[in-house]
């Protein structure tokens, strides 16, 4: 890599991954909540079909993002952070990466177990990961639901932490992930 010193801002690619996936996750929660209350009907199937298509999009983006992340250093955490804060920040980010894979994969397995194969926006159909199985579906559904609450909680923590850095610590942790802004130069 030409640049040996860590960057001070997230690159455009990193910001792109971050905000696109964030928007997709918000969409996912919305679609899941809308579909959850509906009886089995055309509208529910449409909502869940979109949920699955967006979910598979997130999975594909997660693969690209992880590969990209392995070869590109993110900016360093601000110097003033305590070791507990650093551990918490790293743990949160690792959990996010894990959930970016686990959420779509458990969803995909759920669909397979229920014999409702996953289409990607009507363009092609993903293969079933497991054979149809009612009990497997029930277990996977519980896992997918529970992890969605974990994801929700981690996202809230992540947002509150970003706001705390911005308004309380007055550092550039939030700004360096925002497009169209400039981070203050830190020496």
């Amino acid at each position, binding site marked *: 890599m030409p640049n040996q010193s860590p960057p001070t801002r997230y690159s455009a690619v990193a910001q792109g991954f971050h905000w696109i996936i964030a928007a997709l996750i918000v969409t996912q929660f919305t679609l899941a909540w809308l579909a959850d209350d509906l009886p089995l009907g055309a509208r529910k*199937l449409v909502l869940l079909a979109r949920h699955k298509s967006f979910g598979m999009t997130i999975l594909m983006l997660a693969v690209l993002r992880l590969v990209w992340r392995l070869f590109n250093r993110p900016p360093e955490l601000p110097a003033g952070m305590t070791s507990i804060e650093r551990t918490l920040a790293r743990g949160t980010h690792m959990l996010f990466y894990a959930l970016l894979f686990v959420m779509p994969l458990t969803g995909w397995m759920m669909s397979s177990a229920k*014999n409702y194969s*996953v289409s990607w926006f009507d363009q092609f159909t993903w293969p079933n990961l497991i054979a149809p199985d009612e009990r497997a579906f029930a277990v996977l559904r519980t896992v997918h639901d529970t992890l969605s609450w974990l994801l929700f909680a981690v996202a809230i923590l992540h947002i509150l932490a970003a706001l705390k850095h911005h308004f309380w610590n007055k550092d550039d942790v939030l700004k360096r992930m925002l497009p169209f802004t400039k981070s203050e130069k830190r020496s």
Partner: protein
Amino acid sequence: MKKFFVAVMSCVALVAAAAGAGNAAGYTADPQQSRLEFAGVQAGAEFKGVFHKFTAAVDFAPDALASSRIDVQIDMASVDSLDKDRDTTIRGKDIFDVAHNATAHYVTKTISKTAAGYAAVGSLTLRGVTKDVPIEFQFTPAAGSAKLAGTAKLNRLDFGVGQGDWKSTETIGDAVKINFSLVLKPKT
């Protein structure tokens, strides 16, 4: 007198031969080994199901297609798409309406030879609607049995399969593929 006797015997033989040629062998499908499968498209992805209960009476001989016939009765409530929720919905009044149309019936009207095997046109009565549906199949005789396997395509909306919300072909495609594989045993 002798001439007359020969003439009579010849007539008997001719009639017997004619009757023999026109008689297709009678079979019934073995329910254990026979399979009736359908495939539709749901939210962009194919899903498959089977009917567990159906009976098929088949009269068939390759050299007597005119008197050959395939007659199938399907118990619509025996539908199984490997998901109970979906099966309950399919049996409901908007789709199969099994409460009012418990069985579907298919019987061939004409059977003809094709390059690949045989083609037939038959009338399908499904959800109270009767319409012609063509099928293509292969007939493979074996010792003491025979196999009849083939495919058909139909449009579910031709038969009113899908009312209300389910009329839309955006969520559930109109085209349905049918696959069947019958193991035939001689009629007893």
